[in-house]
């Protein structure tokens, strides 16, 4: 995946500007420590990297290797598509499904039945997957 490197000038201008902004962010983080609680914040910030790179990503590759490879060929691409889409939708909806934000004093917060909503959305996704898979199967050589 090695490509040609950017021109040195663009590279260094962006590097200096970018690191200045990073430094400003770090300064602001510590300058507003009564609100940002840096030791807490850093835990969540570093945790975001660690959880993604060493939990979510490997899990994704594991599912890909274990599951997708076992799906017969004409169905593989649509199945993969359905799986990717469903996983992202479930992940995004997770806090709503858990209902952490429900408030007894405020019924307008999280007013939907999110499980039903999610099932409906996933049903739509997998209907498309099934339609595409069916077409691929009919067209198989």
């Amino acid at each position, binding site marked *: 995946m090695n490509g040609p490197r950017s021109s040195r000038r663009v590279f260094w201008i962006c*590097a200096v500007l970018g690191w200045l902004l990073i430094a400003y962010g770090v300064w602001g983080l510590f300058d507003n420590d009564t609100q940002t609680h840096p030791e807490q914040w850093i835990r969540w910030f570093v945790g*975001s990297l660690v959880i993604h790179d060493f939990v979510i990503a490997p899990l994704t590759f594991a599912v890909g290797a274990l599951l997708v490879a076992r799906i017969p060929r004409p169905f593989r*691409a649509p199945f993969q598509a359905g799986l990717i889409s469903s996983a992202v939708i479930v992940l995004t909806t997770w806090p709503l499904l858990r209902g952490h*934000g429900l408030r007894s004093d405020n019924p307008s917060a999280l007013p939907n039945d999110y499980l039903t909503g999610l099932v409906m959305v996933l049903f739509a996704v997998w209907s498309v997957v099934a339609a595409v898979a069916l077409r691929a199967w009919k067209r198989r050589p």
Partner: protein
Amino acid sequence: MKSMPRPRRGPLKDGAFTSPLHSPRTAALLGIALGITFTICFLTGVLSHFIQQPPSGFTWPSRPAGLYRVTQGLHVATGIIAIPLLLGKLWTVYPRLWQWPPIESPTHLVERVSLAPLVAGSVFLLFTGIANISLWYPWRFFFPAGHYWASWITIGALIVHVGAKATIVRTELWGRDPAGLEVTLNGGLSRRGFIGVIAATAGILTLTTIGQTFSPLNRLAVLAPRRPDVGPQGFPVNKSAVSANVLESARDPDYRLRVTGRVERQLDLSLDELRVLQQHRATLPISCVEGWSATVDWEGIRVRQLLDLAGIARPHSVRVESLQSDGLYRVSVLNPIHADDPDTLLALRCNGEALHIDHGFPLRLIGPNRPGVMQTKWVSELTVL
């Protein structure tokens, strides 16, 4: 360094990642899309921060009335779109995490070191953003401050990254790649298919949430944390009277509105006295920082008229205080433009009824082009600054 032998285990093994989807072209296309969404998120986010904590020299106008609704709706909507884009992009470039040798040159070191704040910041911003709109706070920092400072770190790291990748992106986008997008492995997704799935997922997430601010799509908003038509008197509440601890003080028959500060005459008005003042109607959105908004018919007294009664001739800044005894949002400031706008009201009624206590009974501030957290509820005092 080049002579270092490549380890032969796990993800470090040569050819450990076989999918042709891990290609510079896929990375470049998703990268461009992410760059655009992150830029929109950053600009609209900084804007929202400036509106709430104006730096010197920054004056937020009161018109167009629905501008903040658009910028903040965009902030949340592009943040949601960025989720499939980011996960797809990180998956595409994941093999690079294990590249061997880890560092090839001094510039490569500068580039790689910036990837840590870039990946950490991107995941952090999207995670905290989604949790916040879902009203979930599993951390102990103040969300707006933590999210805001992380955004400077992330955008800085993004600029370093763009500088390092500018040439390769240009080559990938304008260079010829015959049939490259159609490459598949064992009948799996092609690159075009992969990008299509990411785009479709972004579309699904948008269609099922955008109705929280764009009411024509309200019925599709099955995954939105709010519905613009759900709540007392037909629109949502963020802070209830119970959680603000104003149930008693708001219903106190001895309630008074005071107008003080740099005025000619102090005002001290009962609810009945407020009701006989000239009432003005305005249809204005209530636009939450969390990305939902609703259009509401308001009725009440112009702030401008109260300032006239207090003997204020020219526009001034006005501090608006709530009956709430604490909380970060018990006070908001009207800049002179907002205080003077004919649609900036202390509302007594909404949608044809007396205000519900959760919407700020007896009196709430409502003005054009303001974040919801600055539309102070249960107003008890105006101080001319």
